[in-house]
């Protein structure tokens, strides 16, 4: 178990934010930072995933591990994430179906894209396993599977030249924005909620930033100098979201995705805002950690075990949605859902670490 650090802390915060934001309509939604900016926790999560790959594929001495080992490590992680996605989706579908039966309410079967699974099981089963049929709120892990799957390409290129990796990544991102490339949904029309061809840029940025950061102080110096710019961007983001100011996607010039605020394609506005957030908050962890004690340890614990916490969090937020529907919601239910959820996320993190420490029972 590693000591609490900034990366785990922020990832923990992203996990809690995602949990809260995945219970739409709940009282606490308006207190998450996603409501006060153009980008949200998803960007942070993917960027930190890239950063963590940088840490994981390098030895304690900072030297990169052998190439084959890195590739196998990423493959193994891809399988873990895929397994988590299939398991959580299966449980989620059963939760939806079970609640629909108990409440005698077929409306629930139409929950965020689940309808296809119940109405068209033959095709949708294939889409479910192939990750091309995604439930609403269960679409980050499919993105993550694809990103980890293609990560070895970027990482091996970056071993030779970081610039080449960045150019390739940025080129793919720009082309996807201009030509609207995305992976298709199937069955059903439309595309993936998170376009991996665009979002890979954040993963590569995270990886390269970690690399630069541990090699020399240049990146750190420059990001400290640019902090005021970050603050300006964050303030601008707050103003734009509070007053709900955003470009009209039918009025922006072509290519429209470059100018609109689009989450699926990680529009430049979201990317710039996210980089602003990074610049503005880079030093905040060191400032606040002495004062927040247990909260810091709690969030870092979540961040250390992000896959398990994210999976349980997805199911808990679905459960909270179902309970809110069942009971009609209200402040009491929201407080209960939040309290129980935060406890259960913490327990999940603790339990995963306990399991890895204890000898197996059988």
């Amino acid at each position, binding site marked *: 178990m590693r000591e609490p650090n900034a990366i785990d802390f922020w990832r923990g915060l992203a996990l809690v934010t995602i949990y809260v934001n995945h219970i739409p309509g709940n009282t606490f939604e308006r207190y998450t930072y996603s409501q006060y900016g153009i980008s949200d926790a998803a960007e942070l999560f993917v960027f930190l995933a890239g950063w963590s790959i940088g840490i994981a594929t390098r030895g304690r001495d900072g030297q990169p591990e052998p190439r084959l080992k890195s590739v196998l490590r990423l493959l193994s992680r891809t399988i873990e994430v895929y397994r988590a996605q299939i398991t959580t989706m299966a449980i989620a579908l059963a939760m939806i179906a079970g609640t629909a039966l108990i409440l005698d309410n077929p409306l629930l079967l139409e929950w965020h894209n689940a309808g296809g699974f119940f109405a068209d099981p033959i095709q949708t089963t294939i889409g479910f396993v192939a990750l091309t049929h995604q439930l609403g709120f269960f679409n980050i892990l499919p993105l993550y599977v694809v990103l980890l799957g293609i990560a070895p390409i970027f990482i091996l290129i970056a071993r030779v030249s970081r610039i080449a990796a960045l150019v390739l990544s940025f080129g793919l991102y720009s082309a996807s924005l201009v030509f609207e490339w995305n992976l298709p949904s199937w069955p059903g*029309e439309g595309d993936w909620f998170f376009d991996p061809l665009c979002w890979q840029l954040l993963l590569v940025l995270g990886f390269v930033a970690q690399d630069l950061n541990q090699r020399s102080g240049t990146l750190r110096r420059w990001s400290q100098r640019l902090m005021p710019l970050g603050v300006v961007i964050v303030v601008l983001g707050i103003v734009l979201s509070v007053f709900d100011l955003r470009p009209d996607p039918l009025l922006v010039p072509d290519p429209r995705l470059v100018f609109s605020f689009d989450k699926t394609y990680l529009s430049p506005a979201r990317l710039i805002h996210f980089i602003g957030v990074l610049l503005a908050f880079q030093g905040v962890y060191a400032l606040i950690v002495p004062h927040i004690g247990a909260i810091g340890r709690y969030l870092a614990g979540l961040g250390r075990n992000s896959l398990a916490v994210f999976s349980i969090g997805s199911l808990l937020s679905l459960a909270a949605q179902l309970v809110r529907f069942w009971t009609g919601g209200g402040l009491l239910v929201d407080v209960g859902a939040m309290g129980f959820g935060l406890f259960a996320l913490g327990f999940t993190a603790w339990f995963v670490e306990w399991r890895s420490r204890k000898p197996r029972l059988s």
Partner: protein
Amino acid sequence: MALAQTSALLISLGLASLGTISGSSRAGAEGSATIVSPPTAAAPAPGGEASEAVDVSLSPECRVPGSKLYTLARLSSVKAALKEKRPVRVLAIGSSSAGAGASATYPVKLETALERSLPNVDVEVESRGMQGEIASGAAERLRSMVAEVEPDLVVWQVGTHDALARVDLDAFASVLDETVQWIKSHEIDVVLVNPVYTASLAQDEYYSSIVRKVQEVALREGVPLVQRYEAMRYLSGSSDKGEAHMLGRQFRLNDLGLRCMAEHVTRAITLSLLQPDPSATGTATAPSVIVAPPKDAAVKPPSPPRSGGASLQEQP
């Protein structure tokens, strides 16, 4: 006999251009200043078992009285597409069922039904499931979808996810208002479809309010509405099997339910196309109406519409 009824109904609709057939549906009439004109020509004699005739242009198992089924309003962009003889692009949003790849789904059924009702017109239906609540963010994604597809008409099944999340009713209505206004401001037509009826939610005050909010917004914004809730309630009441009729043994929306919805949406669109154009003046030509056998009710958009009807259907 069925044929005669259909002709009578269609002719009565066409000649008089009666406009908004909202009316006796209890919630639909709320706050509306529109003239209620049930298709009396086709109604059975007083004392008959039904208070209002069902719409016989629909398949027998989908038949619902017009007033339970829709409120109408003008669809000028679709009309323009028809006039220019170009394909009509329809974006169906929020359908629960899958599209391409799956066999006979709602978008496919909708396209078939629309092409049957509008002979010699090429209709292209694109469908998108929408994740999330319009009261929290999904309205923004709808704008992206519309920008991507650039349709002539958006058929928007709305309210289910917001109802499931029990979002604030006023927040829901105001975002829906804004979004419909936005779509219309780009000269794209909108047809709203309200959420499904299900017996277990018949007493749910909140759920009825969501259904009502969709109706209110449709009236306020002057867009056609398919009253899926009322239609399903009517059908579930009229069948011995109750709700099973629409929802199947495992109470999911079965093939029949989706086909009825496609027919209901088509009916609302074709009748809305008969709405006279407010800008047109003078000429007293009756809209040309092609009467086809039941199930294949073919309605052509009016050539220069009759001015007499215009005063009847002005939206508030």
